[in-house]
């Protein structure tokens, strides 16, 4: 029983990370038809921004985190949109997909070449201790990750639903033309989604890197899981990404613990295939009308 609870909490913690990354991915798709194949690398990178801030500029941890997040928002948010997405969006979806694949390679190799191929330790957010709740020992780090992840998601939902800007962003996502007609500055709303993605990936990076260690290959699996979470949950709804992420984290952990460990990766992949073939809108998504 203790094991199941621990697996659940660990799964939810990992799932919260997937959810954060998947939300950003979904937002980009909804507002600007951008499929960002480099999303995994986007999560890998901010940790290195923080490490560079700490080692080259001598900042201590929290200021470095602030700097890293800011750089992430600017580079992975605004610059990404300006330099990569905007020139390409008029050519259609495929060139952008290819370009983001190229971007992923570029980012990975740049880190490997200029920073180093080895894994680097990263300061944890919480002490390496265990907390006993109801007689079951949980890792403090897992609980902290889970708490922060949930807080971020809740904050985002509040922003999107309760604030004017948030609702404008949702309108832009649902129907850009109508939004424009209503006087919503669509371009700026799209920019905001990119900035939010930049912040979300930075947050995810800081949460997971203490456990995963900073390494240039971190993005590979993480990106794949984020895509799966987004699609399984529902590619056109933010709550789909949340549900997908949490579900995936828990399912993956339980599958790894109780099913064959050599085929651990197979279960999420099979779920992905089944969902795409039989319910492409995902568990919580709306059905997308095909444009003729």
């Amino acid at each position, binding site marked *: 029983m203790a094991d199941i609870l621990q*697996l659940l909490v660990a799964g939810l913690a990992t799932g919260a990370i997937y959810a954060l990354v998947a939300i950003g991915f979904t937002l980009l798709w909804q507002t600007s038809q951008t499929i960002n194949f480099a999303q995994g690398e986007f999560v890998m990178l901010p940790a290195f921004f923080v490490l560079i801030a700490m080692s080259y500029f001598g900042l201590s941890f929290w200021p470095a985190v602030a700097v890293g997040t800011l750089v992430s928002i600017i580079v992975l948010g605004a610059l990404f949109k300006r330099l990569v997405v905007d020139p390409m969006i008029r050519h259609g979806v495929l060139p952008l997909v290819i370009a983001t694949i190229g971007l992923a390679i570029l980012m990975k190799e740049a880190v490997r070449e200029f920073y180093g191929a080895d*894994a680097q330790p990263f300061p944890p957010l919480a002490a*390496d201790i*265990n907390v006993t709740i109801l007689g079951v020992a949980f890792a403090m780090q897992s609980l902290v990750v889970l708490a922060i992840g949930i807080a971020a998601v809740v904050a985002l939902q509040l922003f999107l639903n309760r604030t004017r800007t948030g609702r404008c962003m949702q309108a832009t996502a649902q129907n850009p033309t109508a939004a424009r007609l209503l006087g919503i500055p669509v371009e700026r709303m799209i920019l905001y989604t990119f900035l939010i993605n930049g912040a979300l990936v930075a947050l995810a990076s800081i949460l997971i890197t203490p456990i995963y260690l900073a390494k240039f*290959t971190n993005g590979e699996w993480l990106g794949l899981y984020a895509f799966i979470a987004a699609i399984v949950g529902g590619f056109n709804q933010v709550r789909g990404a949340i549900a997908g992420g949490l579900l995936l984290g828990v399912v993956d952990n339980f599958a790894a*613990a109780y099913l064959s460990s050599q085929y651990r990766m197979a279960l999420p992949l099979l779920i992905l295939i089944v969902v795409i073939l039989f319910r492409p809108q995902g568990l919580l998504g709306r059905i997308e009308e095909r444009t003729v």
Partner: protein
Amino acid sequence: MRGMKLGPVVSALLLMAGAAGAADVKLAYVGEISGSIAVSGGNFRDGVILAVEEINAAGGILKEKIALSQLDTQTNPGVARSQMQKAIDGEPYVVLGPIFSGNVKATMQLLQQAEIPHLIGGEAGELTTLGDRFLFRTSFGQQIGMPKIANFIRDELKAKTIALIWVNNDFGKGGRDNLMKQLAERNIKLVADVSTESGQVDFAADVVKLKAANADAVFVYSNEEECARIMREARKQGLKGPFVGDTTLLSQKTIELAGDAANGVMGHVGLTADAPIPAVAEFTARFQKRFNYKPDHNGIKGYTAVYAVKYVTEKKLGKFDRKALAQVMHGLTIAPKDEPAILIETTWDNVGEIDRISFLAEVVNGQQKITKILPKLGK
């Protein structure tokens, strides 16, 4: 910080540029400079570079300077094969590496056909069983190391059950297969057999499985980074030890990455920079001075390989002859009194397998401490 890798590249280029005369002896390092085994490959290569620089400073081998070329296998067998072909085209005297066992397998055939001796870093057991007369190890095969650690588990830990977590690549699988055989022979039960992916980051579920097995001891056999992550996760979840491993679990990189989580792990180390042998300590100091980081066992492997070639060529052959080198090395023992830079007495048998003393160690306060010296198998 080991951030910038320009140093070794520049020095290698200088080595190549400076020693580009026709009367030079060519050595080729074909190994893992990038990819998942880059840490080990980098250590091995730096050991080679240190040896080459020292030898060249002292006049070279038989008065000829060594020209070292470096080729990257990217930890990918297909790439390894093409790079090895490129190396062979350059007609090297001897090839050093690869370290990744899969790459060794992919390239052995080529080297055999070209009749070029190769001193490999790979430790997978089967490599010396494939009939390659030109292959020589630079450290124990797993089939030598595993019996030693199995004895330790049986005699010192007195464990009756083992939970094993291993990485699913050539190295990990070979170790697992060998270990399972050794444990079975000693009537020790394997109660958990957890495979993990190379490059895996999340070990929560795997540690849960280990906990559920409730074994007397946990055996961790993976690459350095994964060992570190496993240990962190294990401590996080309160998995009880003792934790045992072979070489990688106790290596410098693992300790650095795992921090406090590594304290208390025990295991067998074939080669280690912390061996209580003065020659090794001096080597470690020189390496650290040259490259700004502490070497792991792969650094020693690369270093001693080059000096072995030098010794055999100068003292046993008196000329450069690849086939004769291979023949002489079968059954050869090099002791530190013959060649100090061999560091530890080393014997090769007639299939290229190596025999040396080895060590039992424990990680105490972030340092690897040798607790026992184990004798050679032969003599």
